[in-house]
């Protein structure tokens, strides 16, 4: 079930400062929104859409980062007019939310190791999935995050608290990308058999395509969080299409946002 509801902003936190030369509000933010209706329904990997401003006719989608059953937390980066407006939310502001949208994540029954590989703000999609996986399974969990530079680093504390293995690097300071981290992890001798690993990745499309390629070569199960512009987010408008290698079409809002990387036509 998907509901349209009004949420109330409880708190807005600036998680990472961003670059001042990109605007006063640049950075990464967490917004806690009171919306019991959605909070009760949402499952890990699902997203909500937020009403946008006048010039923008479409709502903006964000993965749910965490929930306590009453509020949900969204974590987002300021990249355009709407996220910049959200970054000025104050306590008490009312926000129109639609959700939860999309399919929840699923863990392979035989997975012995789960790897979550985030590129930049893509890490925001893993908050709820990792917390849920930690409860759900005994499998080893590795969260790895590659950031552009120090000023966009966020969320590490949250994952540390969950008690999972955590690796991260910044491209500028450490010269390492998320893909480098991925290769590094795969060199770890203590990993189980490739077939017992399940990897989730979320980040810029070229990065995910590269990771998908590595996994495919190694025979590792790879799930990707795909983004497409959302029209309805309800499976109705057929706007958020993803082409599959089979030639079939899938929809991010209905079938996704998580897809089996080996089925995605990366040139589509």
């Amino acid at each position: 079930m998907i509901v349209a509801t009004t949420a109330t902003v409880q708190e807005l936190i600036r998680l990472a400062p961003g670059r001042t030369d990109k605007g006063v509000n640049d950075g990464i933010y967490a917004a806690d929104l009171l919306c019991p209706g959605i909070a009760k329904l949402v499952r890990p990997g699902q997203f909500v859409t937020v009403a946008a401003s006048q010039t923008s006719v479409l709502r903006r989608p964000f993965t749910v980062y965490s929930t306590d059953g009453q509020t949900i937390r969204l974590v987002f980066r300021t990249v355009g007019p709407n996220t910049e407006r959200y970054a000025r939310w104050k306590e008490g502001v009312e926000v129109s939310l639609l959700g939860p949208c999309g399919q929840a994540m699923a863990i392979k029954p035989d997975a012995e190791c789960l790897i979550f590989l985030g590129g930049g703000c893509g890490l925001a999609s893993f908050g709820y999935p990792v917390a849920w996986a930690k409860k759900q399974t005994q499998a080893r969990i590795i969260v790895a995050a590659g950031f552009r530079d120090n000023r966009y680093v966020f969320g590490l504390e949250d994952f540390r608290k969950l008690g999972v293995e955590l690796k991260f690097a910044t491209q500028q300071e450490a010269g390492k990308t998320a893909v480098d981290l991925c290769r590094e992890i795969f060199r770890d001798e203590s990993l189980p058999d490739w077939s017992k690993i399940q990897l989730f990745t979320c980040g810029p499309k070229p990065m995910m395509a590269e990771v998908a390629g590595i996994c495919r070569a190694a025979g590792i199960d790879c799930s990707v969080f795909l983004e497409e512009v959302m029209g309805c987010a309800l499976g109705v408008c057929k706007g958020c299409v993803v082409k599959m290698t089979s030639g079939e079409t899938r929809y991010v809002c209905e079938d996704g946002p998580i897809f089996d990387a080996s089925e995605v036509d990366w040139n589509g």
Partner: protein
Amino acid sequence: MVDLTVGLAGIRMDNPVVPASGTWGIESQKILLEAGRFRPGALVTKSVTIEPRPGNPPPRLRETASGLINWIGLAGPGIDRFLADELSVWLSFGQPVIVSIAGKTPQEYVHLAQCLGDTRISGIELNISCPNVGGTIIGTDPQLTAEIVRATRLATGLPLIVKLTPNVTDIAAIAKAAEREGANAIVAVNTFTAMRINPNTGQVIISGGLSGPAIMPQALRKVWEVCRAVKIPVIGMGGIASASDALEFLWAGASAVAVGTANFGNPLVMAEIIEGIAGWLEQNGFGSLEEFRQKKAECR
């Protein structure tokens, strides 16, 4: 609340607000029900084709200033699976259901209309105005428009609503052609052809149809032209996002309005528009929408 009932092409609707084809679905309807809000006067399906269609490659949507370009390409299951899987759900909501159909030739429209003949739907919308399926838009050709309406008219007793493209020099002429051949109502307008190019590479990002508030003043003008040209009722649309916008179309002569892109921005917007129209009528001393319509006719 004031009586918003409207009879249109023989279809009785509780209110004059309907969704635009392709922007409303079963899931949207469920959300409205869940919210306990007013429901549209009728339901209009995404255009159904004979064969299943995968639709166009991505990207299919692109925002522009106060607008949206779509290049969906009539993605859908095809008429057989639509009849088998979807129609019963649409009908289960208890509102009149209008099925939009799209084809390439008069024969295709006839076939689709015949497939719908045995169902409990309330009307058929002929989408002859999709800009996203290659070739020229059917509805830019008065001759072909007339042929399709004529052929479909013979094939079905259901109310026929013809959906026009605004991408023509003289929309009134096309509307008249449709009326002459037996259309029971006109719905206008479909999207305006539009394009965006990547400024860095020169590649066409998207070439499709523009909708949303950006087109509202253009759509209103076209609907006004159509209303002056035909006697059959007109469903006006294009960029409607508020009750105030809807009232402009009603004043222009539309008997009902359709809401498309605004549903994406706010899935409850049709309910708000219905309430807004009712509130306005009440405030202005009208007992019913029909009363407003009569008063308006007298003023002319």
